[in-house]
């Protein structure tokens, strides 16, 4: 999906995403020439259809996790199934350091919507964002214990009132539990 400023005949660029809120997202675009904005509001079906594609934002740079869509999207599944990872891992972006709704530094010349959906769901499900360093360290943890470790780290971060997990948080947990 692409957006065009009719007046300027110029492709619009993503400025901000909001949500999901009850399954709906607001995706706000602006014209780089005249500055006018427009918001696309999705219904829950549209939001979910994009999520159903099983793609990751910026995924071309990283290998897809095997069975990533199945493991991340089944509402109820065996915890040990293929050392299943929780939704936030497979739905998020490896190497993404920006907060979920931030578009700064992202290529905004194309369709931002699909990516925004997955990212926003990732954010919504864990309530926390991970820096690329923290994410990389998490990925090095054996898969069969990774979900448990991730939950512990996120619980620790919440206890401390943090919204982002970075290397320092990982170090704290390492000292605390000796992982």
């Amino acid at each position: 999906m692409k957006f065009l400023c009719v007046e300027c005949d110029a492709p619009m660029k993503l400025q901000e995403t909001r949500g999901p809120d009850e399954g709906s997202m607001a995706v706000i675009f602006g014209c780089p020439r005249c500055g006018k904005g427009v918001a696309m509001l999705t219904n829950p079906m549209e939001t979910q259809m994009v999520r159903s594609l099983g793609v990751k934002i910026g995924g071309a740079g990283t290998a897809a996790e095997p069975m990533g869509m199945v493991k991340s999207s089944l509402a109820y599944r065996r915890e040990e199934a293929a050392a299943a990872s929780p939704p936030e891992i497979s739905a998020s972006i490896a190497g993404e350091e920006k907060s979920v709704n931030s578009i700064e530094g992202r290529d905004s010349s194309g369709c931002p919507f699909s990516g925004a959906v997955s990212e926003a769901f990732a954010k919504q499900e864990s309530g926390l964002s991970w820096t690329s360093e923290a994410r990389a360290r998490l990925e090095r943890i054996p898969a069969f214990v990774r979900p448990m470790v991730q939950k512990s780290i996120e619980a620790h971060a919440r206890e401390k009132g943090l919204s982002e997990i970075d290397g320092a948080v990982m170090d704290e947990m390492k000292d605390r539990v000796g992982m």
Partner: protein
Amino acid sequence: MKRYQDIAGDGGSNIVAQVAEQAGRVKSRMAAVRRIIAVMSGKGGVGKSSVTVNLAAALALEGAAVGILDADINGPSIAKMAGVRGRPLLQGDNGVVPPAAALGIKVMSMDLFLPDDQTPVLWQAPGQKDAYTWRGMMEAAALREFLADTEWGALDFLFIDLPPGSDKLPNLADLLPRLDGVVAVSIPSGVSRLVVARSITVAVELLNAPLIGLVENMAAYVCAHCGREEEMFPPARQENTAEELKAPLLGKIPFDPRIARAGDEGRLFLNDHAHTPAGRAIRQIAGKVKAFL
């Protein structure tokens, strides 16, 4: 005013490239599979999964490397029939390692991801209302991952057990880089013929898929005591199903309660009963499938 095509690229989301990469992963994985065979019916309850498991077993008994993909995402049964239900799925170096049933048959099924007997396949969503709009996409994505992300290794035959519905084969064909053969399963009833005929039309005329032929399941009942065959369906229904469906008849499998029992117990029927009438019929059909391919 600019058109869609005038605006280059899809930017950081990179969705189009990722979808292409997904197809590439399936193609790469299937390159190590010599023959991909879909088992379909269109009609439920005709014994597709049972036929699939038994054909796979027959070829495995001959020494072939065989895998079964259970494409029935919502009603998976292959894991139970093959005796791998509850086995762990392990993460390998190059994907998810499928559990191996007897005779080394590799199995991948949604059943292996579900926690217990009662849990259905439910997808995470803001709400399940109006899920019909996207559920099919989730199922197709799951099937794609089963194909691409399972460490099938080098296989001689990969059987894909399709759920009922004449739309299932086209969906599968869209995901696969190639389909080497289609086996249709029916029972000698008018209702079944009606539904299976439509599925065969889709396979042959819409998809131009290589139809190996028709298996007539539950063709007769073999008395366990005297070995005599009795008709399962009224004589009026015992017409030449294959001829009516314009499909080569691969064979007729008589009903044998031991097939159902073996499935319930997760044992391979052919391992114990290869020389029964049903066992012989299955092996003959498997021979024809192999010869076709």
